[in-house]
């Protein structure tokens, strides 16, 4: 059971990490990087590292995409 969970998490990390690299549009990339963070958190959880998984969720799936999204909103403003 545990091996299956680790295997699923590893595949998910590999797939979403590749997706982050291949997506060229920064807005879609911000969402993809959020999913990548969630995948990493699942991997850490399946390896029984609860503390690291919690940090990964709060930083990788909340803080990082938020900062990228707000920065995109700023640089896309129409020049006055």
């Amino acid at each position, binding site marked *: 059971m545990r091996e299956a969970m680790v295997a699923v998490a590893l595949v998910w990390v590999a797939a979403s990490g590749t997706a982050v690299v291949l997506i060229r549009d920064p807005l879609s990339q911000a969402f993809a990087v959020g999913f990548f963070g969630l995948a990493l958190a699942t991997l850490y959880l399946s390896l029984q590292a609860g503390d690291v998984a919690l*940090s990964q969720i709060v930083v990788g799936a909340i*803080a990082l995409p938020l900062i990228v999204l707000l920065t995109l909103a700023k640089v896309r403003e129409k020049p006055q």
Partner: protein
Amino acid sequence: MTPRGRLVFFIMAAAGLSVALGIGFSELPSFGAPISAYASLLNHLAPVQRRVTDVVSAVSFDYRGIDTLFEEFILFSAVTGIAVVLRPLSDEVRDLPEDEAPERKVPAPSPAVGLLGVILSPLLVLIAIETITHGQLTPGGGFQGGVILASALYVIYLATGYSTAERFQPTALLEGSDGFGAGGYVVVGLLGLLGGVAFLTNVVGLGHSGNLISGGTIPLLNVVVGIEVAGGFAILGSEFLDQTAVIRPRRK
């Protein structure tokens, strides 16, 4: 640099990196190998020595507490740097955007989203306090709980808008808690010196393993770190939000 020169430079760098990584990885324990001697030693020692049930907390806030002190100041200086870089510059103004089409009807935000925010943000505050105060018992602690606490502010912004969210972000309080938390870590460390032992030594009564108040200075450090991280991430969010919502070039 010509494309050819760049390729040669890349190949040399990649070769060096792969050799270094190869040597490093070859010495790593294989997947699923038994945990290291240091880890099993800590698993046996920490619950007895420090009366905690989350050994990771004992490592970060006690055995290697000085490392966490430096990490706190890394975060502190990063947040300070962002606040400096993202301040309104001399050719920028800080005010709410003018409505250029006042006759346009803007649909009101859905009440369902507001209700979700009303339910979600107090829940996040509660989970944050739970995560911070139970750091010595279960996975979690000051850092994770602090970010969850700050994310309650993000939920208020998403559910309402900039003007409401700004009322929940008093700058003086956020900056004060960032500084108080970072300084508080040093103060808790000084308790050791007052007790006549080394800096950051766990000198407070350890209590009983499994109780909410147990582990001596570990829960104290979790609380100050939680205050610092919550303040820091809230400043981070509000600085980026200000840049997006209210800071704009001054009109000529």
